[in-house]
C-alpha cells in the first residue's frame, strides 16, 4: 500500500507472475528475453567479482556458490507461494531444523531405510505447513503471528527431540550423498544443486501451469473476489502452506545431509534470508504478484554477493554494509528496468 498514485500507473509487471504473454513464438521469445534482463543485476555482480578476483569464476567456486544457494533457495521457493497469497512464513528456518532432526530420528534413532528418512523429512515439513495453514485459515490468526509461534515451537521441539545434541547419521552412511554425491558423472555439481533446480522447475510448473498456482495468485490479489468465485479459499490456503512446508522439509533433508548431522540449534535467521531472496526476486509482500524465476535469481544474487565479498576478503563488518547497499541498488535497477520495459 505504500506506493503512491504517480508511481502506480507506471509500476508493476504487466500481469501476474508468469503473465499471459505473446502467444506466437516471437512473442514468447521476446518475453523470455525480457525475463532474461532480470538477470541484469546478477550478471553485473558476476562480472564485477570476476574482474576483482579471477578465482571467483572458477568452476569449483561457482559450484560452491550454487551449493551455498541450495538450502536458502529451496526455502525461498516454498515461501514464494505463501508470499504470493499475501501471507508470510517465519517458521521456515527453525521448521527446516526440526525436519533435519526428524530425519535424524527416522534414520539414526529408528534405523529406518534411507528413502523413508528422506521422504519422512519432507512429509514432516508438510505437516508443519499443514498446521500453519490450518491455524491461519480456520482460526483466522494472522500469518505473521501463526508462523512466528510455529517458529518458536519448532525451535523448541528440535532441541527437545534431539536432547539439544546433534544427531549423526551413523546408521546410514549413504545419507551424505543425498546432497553431496555427484549423480551425473563428469559433472562437478553436487546433487543438492540439481535437487534445487528440479525443485524450482516443479515450483514453476505448480505456480504457472496449475489451478493451484492460479488460486495462489488470485487469493493474493483479492481473497474476497476469489471466495465469491466459488473457490474454497480456506482450503487452498491450507494447501499453499502445506506445499511450502514440503519445501521446508526438503531443505531440512539437504541441510542434514550436507552437515552429516542434524544440528538442533541452527535455523534461526534463515527465514529472513529466504524471504529477502523472494522479495529481491520481485514478488510483492502485498500478494498477487511474483515468480519462481525471480526467486531463483534473488537467491543467487544473495549468495553471489556473499561469496564474492568473502573471496575478496573484505572485512566482515564492511561486507554487511556492502550487501545492504548492493541489494538496494539491485532492486532499484530491476524496478527501473521493468518500468522502461513497460513504457516501450
Amino acid at each position: 500500500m505504500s506506493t503512491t498514485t504517480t508511481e502506480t500507473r507506471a509500476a508493476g509487471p504487466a500481469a501476474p507472475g508468469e503473465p499471459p504473454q505473446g502467444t506466437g513464438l516471437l512473442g514468447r521469445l521476446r518475453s523470455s528475453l525480457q525475463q532474461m534482463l532480470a538477470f541484469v543485476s546478477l550478471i553485473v555482480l558476476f562480472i564485477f567479482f570476476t574482474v576483482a578476483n579471477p578465482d571467483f569464476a572458477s568452476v569449483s567456486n561457482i559450484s560452491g556458490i550454487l551449493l551455498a544457494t541450495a538450502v536458502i533457495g529451496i526455502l525461498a521457493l516454498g515461501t514464494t507461494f505463501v508470499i504470493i497469497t499475501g501471507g508470510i512464513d517465519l517458521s521456515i528456518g527453525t521448521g527446516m531444523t526440526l525436519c533435519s532432526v526428524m530425519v535424524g530420528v527416522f534414520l539414526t534413532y529408528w534405523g529406518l531405510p534411507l528413502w523413508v528418512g528422506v521422504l519422512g523429512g519432507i512429509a514432516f515439513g508438510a505437516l508443519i505447513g499443514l498446521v500453519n495453514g490450518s491455524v491461519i485459515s480456520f482460526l483466522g490468526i494472522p500469518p505473521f503471528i501463526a508462523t512466528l509461534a510455529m517458529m518458536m515451537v519448532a525451535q523448541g521441539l528440535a532441541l527437545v527431540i534431539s536432547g539439544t545434541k546433534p544427531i549423526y547419521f551413523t546408521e546410514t552412511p549413504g545419507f551424505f550423498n543425498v546432497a553431496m554425491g555427484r549423480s551425473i558423472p563428469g559433472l562437478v555439481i553436487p546433487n543438492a544443486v540439481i535437487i534445487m533446480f528440479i525443485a524450482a522447475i516443479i515450483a514453476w510448473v505448480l505456480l504457472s501451469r496449475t489451478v493451484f498456482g492460479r488460486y495462489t495468485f488470485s487469493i493474493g490479489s483479492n481473497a474476497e473476489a476469489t471466495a465469491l468465485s466459488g473457490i474454497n479459499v480456506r482450503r487452498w490456503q491450507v494447501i499453499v502452506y502445506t506445499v511450502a512446508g514440503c519445501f521446508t522439509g526438503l531443505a531440512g533433508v539437504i541441510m542434514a545431509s550436507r552437515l552429516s548431522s542434524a544440528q538442533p540449534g541452527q535455523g534461526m535467521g534463515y527465514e529472513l534470508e529466504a524471504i529477502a531472496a523472494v522479495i529481491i526476486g520481485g514478488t510483492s509482500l502485498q500478494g498477487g504478484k511474483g515468480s519462481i524465476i525471480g526467486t531463483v535469481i534473488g537467491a543467487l544474487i544473495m549468495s553471489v554477493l556473499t561469496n564474492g565479498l568473502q573471496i575478496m576478503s573484505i572485512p566482515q563488518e564492511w561486507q554487511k554494509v556492502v550487501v545492504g547497499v548492493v541489494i538496494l541498488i539491485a532492486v532499484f535497477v530491476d524496478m527501473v528496468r521493468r518500468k522502461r520495459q513497460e513504457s516501450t
Partner: protein
Amino acid sequence: MTAQTLTDTTATDSPLLELRGISKSFPGVRALDDVELTLHGGEVLGLIGENGAGKSTLMKILSGIHPPDAGRIAINGREVEILTPKAAETLGVTIIHQEFNLASDLSVAQNIFLGREPRSLGMFVSDATLNRRAAALLERVGVDLDPRTRVGDLTVAGQQMVEIAKALSVQSDILIMDEPTAALNDAEVAALHDIIRGFVSPTTGVIYISHRMEELKRITDRITVLRDGQYVGTVDTPDTELRTVIAMMVGREITAAQEPAPAHIDAAAPPALEVEGLSTKRLLREVSFSVRRGEILGFAGLMGAGRTEVARAVIGADPHTSGTIRLDGTPVRIASPAAAAAAGIGYLSEDRKHLGLLLDRSVADNIALSSLPRLSTAGFVRTGAIREAAHAAVDTLRIKTPSIGQQVKNLSGGNQQKVVIGKWLLHDSGVLIFDEPTRGIDVGAKEEIYALLQSLAEQGKAIIVISSELPEILRLCHRVAVMSEGRLAGTLDAAEASQESIMELATAHTQAIVHDTPQPTDTRDRGGPRHEHHDH
C-alpha cells in the same frame, strides 16, 4: 412476456424465484424488513429503491454472501437454503456485483474463468485455451477487450464489462445485475440490453437493479420497489408512469427534472483554469480547454475517449509530455495531486472503491481527509470540528449511515459515492473536477447533487463534470467538451448541445479510423498498467 399477478401463482406453475419475509439486520441497521420478491421465467424484473434501500443486500442474500435473519427462498417452487456463493452457483443463480469483485492482478481471461478453469489431468490449466475461450465469449458479448490484459489496467467501464462477461460465462437460470450500467454510456447500455434480451428464455429470468429510470422503462417487464428496507410494491412496467414508481420509491412526489437552465455566465470573466496543448505519452493529443469561475464545463465522450486521463494529467496524478496549465492566468507546474490540492484543484475519482475511499475507515475520517489542515490547530485535529463537518455532510447529502463512525465499506454503494462527494464539498478548492459524480446515486439524490453543484458554481467555483450520462451533462453544464480518441473533438455551448450533436463529435474521429485498424484494442495494448488496485 405478460406479467402475472402474484395470486396467479399455483403449485404447478410456480415462479422461477420467490422470496418471502426476508429480513436482515446489520449492527445498527435494519437493512431488510419482511421483504418479498417474485421473479417469473422469461421476465426481466427491475428492482429499485433509494440508496441504502436494501437492494444489494437482498441480492447478496440470494447469492449466498449474507445469510438472511428470517425468510424463505424458493426456486421453481422448491424451498432452498443458499449459504455460500458456490451453493448459489449450483442452484443456477449468478450475480454481477455492484462493487466489482475481480482479482486485479489476474488477466481478463483468468478472471472470467476463475474457479471454473478447464483443467487437464485434474490440475493443469492452459492460459492459451483460456484466452481463446475468453476471446470467443467477449466477442459474443460484444466487448472489445484483450483477454490477456491485466484487469487492474482496465478502466472502470472495462472492469464492468469483465464482470458482465464473467457472469455470462456461467450457465445460469437467474441472472442478477446490480447496477451493471452505472459506469457505462448509452451505446454500451444498448449492447448490454441486447445481451439481456438474448439471455431471457421461458426458463430463465433477470433481476436488474439500476437508478437510471429510462433504462428500466426500456428493459424491464415489472418493477419491484423497496424503501428503507421494506417492500413497497411491484408494478407492470408498460402500464406505469415512471413518476409513479419514483413516488413509491421516495415516498413523496418529486418534481420532474427541470429543463437545463444554467445560470448566465459572464463571458468576459477570466478563466479560472486554462489548459493548453495537453498531451500524454499514451493517449492525449493537444487537448486545450478552459473553465471560468461560476461555470460548469461538461466532458463527454465514449468509453476510453480519455476524459479521465485529462483530469489525471491536470492534477498531476499522471505525467504529461507537453502542455501548459494556468490558474487564474498564472502558469503553474502541478507535479502531484498534493500540489493540485494546494493550488486549489480538487479531483473526485470515478473509481470510488480503489481511488476514492478509505474503505475501512469511518465516514467522518473519509469526509475530513482532504480538509484536515483546515480542521486542525498546530497539527492537532479538532475532533469536534471534524464531527460537525461530517454531520453537516451527512445531513446535506442525506447519507444513510447509522453513525459517522461507521466504516465506509458497510455503506451501500450510492451512499459511499455520497461520502466521496462530501469530501470534496468540504475541501475549499476553486476548481473542482468531478469524474462520474453520480455513479450509483438514486434519482432523487441526483437532483439534489445537481443543485449542490449549481450552487457551488454560483458561489464562484469553476467546475468540470465528466459524465457518461448525456442527460446529466445536458442538464447541468454551461458548455460541453467532447473527447474522442484522446483529442478534443469540439466544445459546444449549452444552446448547441444535444444528444445528437455530442454523439456526432464523440464518434467523428473514431469512424475515420475504425475502418482500417481496430483502434480501441490497440490503445489498450500499448499502454502500461492503468492503476494498481489493492484489494485487501
